[in-house]
């Protein structure tokens, strides 16, 4: 059951992105930013936690989950060390993801060779 709900929630989030590409003039880069910011806002209002409760990794893997992670990190850090947490919490929470993205991005860029789409 949790597989199905993860598939559905993740699928819906990605389908919204496809609709934005097809029906609006937003570039893919802007859609990514919109997703991160939406994740932050939904997290701040406590909505995204509910989506994660239903969809699990289907909600944490897409970019909205990254936004959620940033917001949650800030909340936690503000509770722990106070107002300075606004500036440190987001990066602390996302540090593993960001470092991994840089690391694996570099490895793939070194190994891979770009090609034109068929």
């Amino acid at each position, binding site marked *: 059951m949790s597989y199905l709900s993860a598939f559905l929630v993740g699928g819906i989030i990605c389908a919204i992105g496809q609709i934005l*590409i*097809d029906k609006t003039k937003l*570039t893919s880069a802007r859609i990514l930013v919109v997703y991160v910011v939406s994740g932050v806002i939904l997290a701040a209002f406590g909505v995204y936690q509910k989506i994660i409760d239903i969809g699990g990794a289907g909600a944490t893997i897409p970019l909205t989950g990254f936004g959620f992670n940033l917001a949650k990190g800030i909340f936690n850090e503000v509770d722990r060390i106070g107002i300075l947490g606004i500036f440190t919490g987001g990066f602390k929470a996302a540090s593993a993801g960001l470092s991994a993205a840089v690391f694996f991005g570099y490895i793939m860029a070194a190994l891979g060779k*770009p090609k034109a789409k068929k």
Partner: protein
Amino acid sequence: MAEKHIGKQTVALKNPPTIKATASIVGPKEGRGELKQCFDLIIPDELWGESSWEKAESKLVREAFAKLLQNAKLSNDKIDFILAGDLLNQCIAASYGLRETNVPFLGLYGACSTMAESMSIGSMLIDGGFADNVVCLTSSHFCSAERQFRFPLELGSQRTPTAQWTVTGSGAVALASQGTGPYIRNITVGKINDLGITDINNMGAAMAPAAADTILTHFADTGLVPEYYDLIVTGDLGKIGKKLCLDILRMNGLNIEANYNDCGVMIFNLNEQDTHAGGSGCGCSAAVFAGHIYKEMMKGNLKRVLFIATGALMSPVSLQQKESIPGIAHAVSIHRSLD
């Protein structure tokens, strides 16, 4: 009053130059398209043995030039001018591709209208008695154009439904003062048209008003009718821009549907090749003209052709600053014989 200038924007050449030969090289995807039979060379992959897309595009230019000289049976020292351009910053595909030619070079930027622009200026140079042999050449490359204007391929981003596919290819035309045709007889130089389109993924719509304006002006200036031509062909409006161009012309009382087509629609199989709205880029109209249209004229299947290459004159910076996309189109009237 200039004696060779007729109407508002048209030049009637007194000593019409001959198109002595053409050459075309295209990429693998174009080589699987509708016109695959007609190109001189289809490269096996987009890098073509080079280390970057930009170097590969320069190689397209270099090899198209070499092929053209071979087809025209000319040597470098017989060429008075090369008029060439492409889509990359500072037109590096042309300048790097041609740096070893040792021929006087004039770089042009008319975006995807560059083929018609170079043929226009080349014809006027010959008609004016300034040259006997002029080479007109353009190129574009899907991968270098994506990096220049949209996103680098490495990002793997999704394409929108209205997006066009930049043609990987180069087309070259040798114009000569002496020869037996096809002849370039009239040239209508286009004005910049900007109706406020800001979507980089819908360039056909940005260029269609310019194409329609140049076509209307051409017929008004020359007094000709659309039926006079066997083919009226725009450069790279794609299927969206093609329809829009026909609509604008119809609103202005001109129906050219019977013998109208667009190089961006002709070059790919739009249903099977997933190119969305069709082909674009300098190389699109250049390769279709050099590979297909010229050969059809030589076979006698086309006697009179109006070739209108269309360009979108934005830059990545102007787009980031939310400027709209100005369009341009130049028309070249080509006749198999001088009758």
